[in-house]
């Protein structure tokens, strides 16, 4: 039934229709539209209702999805209504006026020659202080003092890093801030989300062990307070992952863990399917919505197009990163509620708060093919229309 609901949400946006980028989509359901097509037939045949015109419904839906679809647009940067003087957002470039070009040129000079060096310096300071500070704190024996110092170091470093991106963050509803022994879930747009959230509180990070600079950061961070880093091989074992996280959450002295259930970066116009794994751990869930203002800089990381370094460079040559963070009231799994339903409940709350579209599609579709079960659902639905009610289950 859950799958059915998911599909209906995709094809059934509103009664009258839905106008977006290229196309106004009339969203009748399959039964409604094929029924209308058939009303033109003078007689209905006993025991079977296929007509040649049924194909119109599928071909129209197909062409509509070719012109514009709900999913692929989420994996590339949002288009802006008016230009913000960054070449990267200028998709329909045409020369407008000399004055605009001069202003743009001035913008480039300011961003690359003044802002960029300052920001790189700050970032370098912030990251090296993170490594040094956490290693120093790690030398202390476990005590309240150590935790306090660790939080101080982490906060300081993240704040420096936020300055390095010229991030202006507005936190709302701070009374709902995640507490120890809980799980913080948020929508995912870029790796910077971590910096944005960690500016206001301390979290235990969850993720894969990396090599290189990331690895150095990870290893030093874990010295001062427990984070949860997994080896690549361990990530495949879901049971192991869940157990470790559960143990972390059970310890009420440990910091709340930060998880992004979408599993991949989405372009901040919608929230895609939340993987149920995070919602099976137990404990209180603190949902958080992060919404970036695209006018000052595009925060979305298109990992297929840009690697980490070029992404950070783009971040540091934007005007600024402006975002809003809403802390939503904590939720817990209800009696008899299954993880998928719980995940969807949290997802809807996050989407509603940020004004984002609530989609059931899996963010993994960025790279993977869609499962055949969805097509089979459509086929089943159509079959029950042709052979009548007696064989639909």
């Amino acid at each position, binding site marked *: 039934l859950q799958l059915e609901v998911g599909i209906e949400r995709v094809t059934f946006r509103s009664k009258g229709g839905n106008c977006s980028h290229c*196309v106004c989509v009339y969203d009748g359901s399959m039964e409604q539209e094929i029924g209308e*097509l058939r009303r033109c037939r003078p007689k209905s045949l006993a025991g*079977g209702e296929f007509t040649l*015109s049924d194909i*119109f419904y599928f071909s129209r839906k197909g062409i509509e999805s070719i*012109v514009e679809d709900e999913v692929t647009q989420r994996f590339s940067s949002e288009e802006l209504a008016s230009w913000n003087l960054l070449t990267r957002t200028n998709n*329909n*470039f045409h020369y407008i006026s000399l004055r605009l070009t001069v202003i743009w040129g001035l913008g480039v000079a300011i961003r690359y020659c003044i802002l960029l060096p300052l920001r790189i310096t700050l970032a370098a300071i912030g990251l090296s202080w993170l490594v040094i500070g956490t290693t120093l704190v790690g030398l202390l024996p476990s005590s309240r003092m150590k935790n306090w110092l660790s939080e101080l170091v982490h906060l300081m470093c993240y704040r420096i890093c936020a300055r390095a991106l010229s991030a202006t963050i507005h936190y709302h509803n701070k009374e709902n801030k995640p507490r120890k022994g809980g799980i913080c879930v948020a929508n995912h747009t870029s790796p910077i989300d971590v910096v944005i959230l960690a500016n206001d509180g301390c979290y235990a990070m969850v993720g894969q062990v990396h090599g290189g600079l990331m690895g150095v950061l990870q290893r030093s961070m874990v010295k001062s307070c427990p984070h949860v880093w997994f080896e690549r091989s361990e990530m495949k074992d879901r049971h192991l992952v869940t157990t470790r996280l559960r143990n972390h959450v059970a310890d009420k002295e440990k910091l709340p863990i930060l998880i992004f259930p979408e599993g991949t970066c989405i372009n901040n116009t919608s929230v895609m399917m939340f993987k149920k794994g995070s919602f099976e751990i137990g404990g209180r869930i603190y949902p958080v919505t992060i919404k970036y203002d695209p006018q000052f800089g595009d925060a979305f990381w298109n990992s297929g197009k840009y690697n980490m370094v070029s992404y950070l460079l783009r971040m540091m040559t934007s005007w600024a990163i402006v975002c809003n963070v809403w802390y939503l009231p904590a939720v817990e799994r209800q009696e008899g509620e299954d993880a998928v339903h719980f995940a969807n409940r949290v997802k809807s709350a996050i989407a509603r708060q940020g004004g984002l579209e609530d989609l059931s599609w899996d963010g993994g579709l960025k790279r993977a093919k*869609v499962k055949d079960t969805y097509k089979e659902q459509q086929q089943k639905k159509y079959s029950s229309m042709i052979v009548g009610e007696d064989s639909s289950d």
Partner: protein
Amino acid sequence: MGSRASTLLREEEIEEIKKETGFSHSQITRLYSRFTSLDKGENGTLSREDFQRIPELAINPLGDRIINAFFPEGEDQVNFRGFMRTLAHFRPIEDNEKNKDPSGTEPLNSRTNKLLFAFRLYDLDRDDKISRDELLQVLRMMVGVNISDEQLGSIADRTIQEADQNGDNSISFNEFIKVLEKVDVEQKMSIRFLH
């Protein structure tokens, strides 16, 4: 970089496409944006894989047939002109077009051409006839595994019987038009493109 989209589409090309398909200038540039965003290989053409990457199309039971409609016989790539030519079939028929003089070539989005698009979805081997076998195959695509062969066979037989007039046990294009003469093709096979 950001300025790929319409700088690569010259004004003359836009004019030609406008004349051929009837789309407006802004519609053509928007659809060109869409074309380039689907073109992952960045070589100016789309392959079948590029279309299959659209999840909503991949779950459409007739997704493969629709994708096929974009590709001319034997070809594996479609350029922007071909893309627009196929999409033009779904442009709504405007009132001022209905009374155009019949001496000019028929517009791509005429009722007949819309029906021809649908006909070609059924006509797998492009021989201008829908045989029983072809109808069965398309039906099988639409219903999946949910209906037995016998039942599907009888549905196909009944459909051909109803449409076939010259007794050759297949449906020609004219017979197809005749069967669907009361259907509001103009509305059902049209998409409202934003200006």
